[in-house]
């Protein structure tokens, strides 16, 4: 009886799978804002152009993209198309759509820098795997009203991390708010100042060398800032392991002077801060070696396991089009990854003045990012670095490990990760 039912369940599942439309593409999509909704709108045009092909969007939690999707793909399950962020980690499952696109050269020209993020491992060096629809850049936000109230001059563009730390602390003390500075809890945000302090991340042979003098310099500075209260200790010490945490709520609440996060916060600040105070994007913050931020992003990719590679290829071709990207970006209020749109600029729909200004500041900072930042973003095992960094640095902040021990463990963690993924 049990076996019968078991098989019955299995057969039922198969029947359902087979009954689906012959050319239905399943699209596993996560969203920070309204990305999936906007894409659903756009795909109507795609379906009109390609009769017989339909796109079914499954809006899933980000955790499902991060934890469920790789497992599904490894055993040959999963969707046809996905919106993902871990390009390096999923690269082995991605479909090269070069044979199916109308003009590969144009796509190369528009998306060259982010295309490189999926060209790792055994993937073709000229393959087209991913179309980034949400380019992100890390950078600072300052609460201008607090600066005005404190009568402290806001550091000019090109100011260093120390300048901002000194100014933000002065503002905090003058205005009585809780926090001077905060940085999101991830190795990705940490990497920007670390590179600015001279961290190379990679050796001459292209292999990761995480802890060098530059990395150590910023790590020590960062821990010291956490200890003396310059940095909001809550953000990093408030969690364990590689867990992500941000300080957006504190900034929105007017309780934080300087917040180092990224361009994805702009839309939210525009909506939630409203009229409460004036805020500005600061652009890149400088260290002794550079003034870089970190690029990043989410993009749409096809998977090898699909039964309709040509339809997937056409879909990615559609997604890459200038006018489609423009329409989507205008509504999602993200920075363009498309070089042509970057140069021409995007007009955002219904965006208040501070939002437009901040988006412009961030977009302008992207071309100046250090090559190291791009290399790190495109590195296959970067997630290992991004999760190990907060885990170990936090241990140093709360005193479980000394700085030396923490950095030593950090190096060992990353070395092990690299060895395991070979």
């Amino acid at each position, binding site marked *: 009886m049990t076996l019968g039912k*078991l098989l019955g*369940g299995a057969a039922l*599942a198969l029947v359902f799978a087979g009954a689906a439309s012959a050319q239905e593409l399943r699209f596993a999509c996560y*969203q920070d804002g309204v990305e999936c909704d906007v894409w659903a709108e756009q795909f109507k045009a795609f379906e009109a152009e390609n009769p017989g092909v339909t796109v079914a969007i499954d809006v899933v939690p980000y955790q*499902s993209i*991060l934890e469920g999707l790789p497992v599904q793909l490894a055993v040959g399950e999963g969707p046809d198309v996905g919106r993902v962020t871990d390009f390096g980690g999923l690269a082995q499952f991605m479909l090269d759509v070069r044979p199916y696109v109308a003009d590969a050269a144009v796509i190369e020209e528009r998306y060259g820098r982010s295309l490189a993020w999926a060209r790792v491992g055994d993937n073709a060096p000229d393959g087209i795997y991913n179309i980034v629809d949400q380019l992100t850049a890390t950078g600072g936000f300052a609460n201008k009203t607090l600066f005005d109230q404190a009568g402290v001059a806001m550091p000019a563009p090109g100011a260093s991390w120390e300048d901002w730390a000194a100014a933000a602390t002065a503002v905090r003390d003058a205005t009585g708010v809780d926090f001077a500075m905060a940085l999101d809890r991830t190795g990705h945000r940490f990497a920007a100042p670390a590179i600015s302090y001279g961290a190379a991340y990679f050796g001459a042979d292209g292999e990761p060398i995480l802890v060098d003098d530059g990395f150590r310099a910023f790590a020590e500075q960062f821990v010291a800032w956490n200890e003396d209260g310059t940095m909001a200790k809550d953000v990093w010490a408030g969690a364990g392991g590689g867990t992500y945490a941000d300080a957006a709520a504190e900034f929105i609440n007017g309780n934080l002077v300087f917040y180092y996060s990224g361009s994805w916060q702009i839309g939210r600040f525009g909506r939630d801060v409203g009229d409460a105070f004036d805020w500005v994007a600061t652009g890149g913050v400088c260290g002794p070696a550079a003034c870089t931020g970190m690029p990043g992003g989410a993009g749409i990719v096809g998977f090898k396991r699909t039964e309709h590679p040509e339809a997937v290829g056409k879909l990615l071709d559609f997604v890459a089009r200038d006018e489609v990207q423009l329409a989507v970006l205008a509504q999602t209020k993200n920075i363009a990854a498309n070089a042509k749109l970057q140069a021409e600029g995007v007009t955002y729909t219904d965006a208040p003045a501070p939002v437009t200004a901040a988006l412009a500041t961030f977009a302008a900072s992207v071309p100046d990012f250090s090559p190291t930042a791009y290399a790190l973003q495109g590195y296959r095992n970067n997630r290992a670095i991004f999760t190990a960094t907060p885990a170990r640095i936090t241990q140093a902040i709360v005193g479980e490990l000394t700085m030396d021990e923490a950095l030593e463990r950090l190096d060992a963690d990353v070395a092990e990760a690299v060895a395991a993924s070979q």
Partner: protein
Amino acid sequence: MLGFLTRTRGRRRADLTDWLAWAFLVLGVLLMLGPVVWIVLSSFKTEAALQEYPPTLLPLATQTVTVEGYADPLPLYRVTEGEHAGRTLAQVRRVGLVAQMIDPADPATRLDVNIAARAPVRQVDVATENYTALFSRFNFLLYFWNSTFITVVATILTVLFNSMAAFALSKYKFRGRTVVFLLIIATLMIPPTINLVPIFLVVSQLGLVNSPWGVIWPAIATPTGVFLLRQYMLTIPDDLLDAARMDHASEWRVYWRIVMPLSAPALAVLVIFSVMWRWNEFLWPLIVLNQAEEFTLQLALNSFQGELQTSWSNLLAMTVLTLLPITIVFAILQKYITQGIAQAGVK
């Protein structure tokens, strides 16, 4: 000190121990229900109101007034100091540290007020948009149905299979009984989270990915259920069973007509646990179900969680929505549930 604890029932005389007991219970009610009530209240606040510190008990928002000459309603503020102190003014806009305000009665005159010298006039404002935003985004009924289907089917199968196994382990003496029991006990100790990957391999080999059965089958052979039921069935006297056998009852009849009804309290406990487990399950469905039409309520509600942003307003509304069905069921069946557990525990 502990003396009051031993008083038996049936003696009514309000003394110190009674007062202490009452104090304890009142404190307990506050501690047990307070946090939940606080969440429910908070879930009706706007995102801006949620960020306020110190928090207000009720959801409040700035009162607005419609003034001639201005299209949008203007927020009202009470001026606390300076030359306009004590007046209630409407704010037109804020520029840096200065708010441009007008008196609604005299909209022509513009007054400049330092932003630190004004406090918003507030009223209760229930942010139902936290909920409507959730509902408008997805097909609530479909996900509710999916969750209900999985919960009900899994619970029926759990009760059936576990009680059959418990019956075998408690009422028969056969070779290998101890081994089977020990194996089951051993798995009682192993949290399923550990085996996530291997179980997924098995489920995908069976073709159950993206099917509710992929959630149901792995969940139903609970060692806890077998253990609980077996311990309870041990207390059912064998004489009863033997008497039935004398009357030529089949083993199946003994099980279905005698042991099952007698185990009702323990079965009730298992039903409650199973419903709770399946309804609240998140991690496993997250991995097995990735097509929207198969999502459970927990998954659908969590599809609001992006990579980079979490907003408390959505999160709180979601939390309240997930605890609501189980709270309603509990409120209705409270008496039976607590009595069921109590009876199953005592035997």
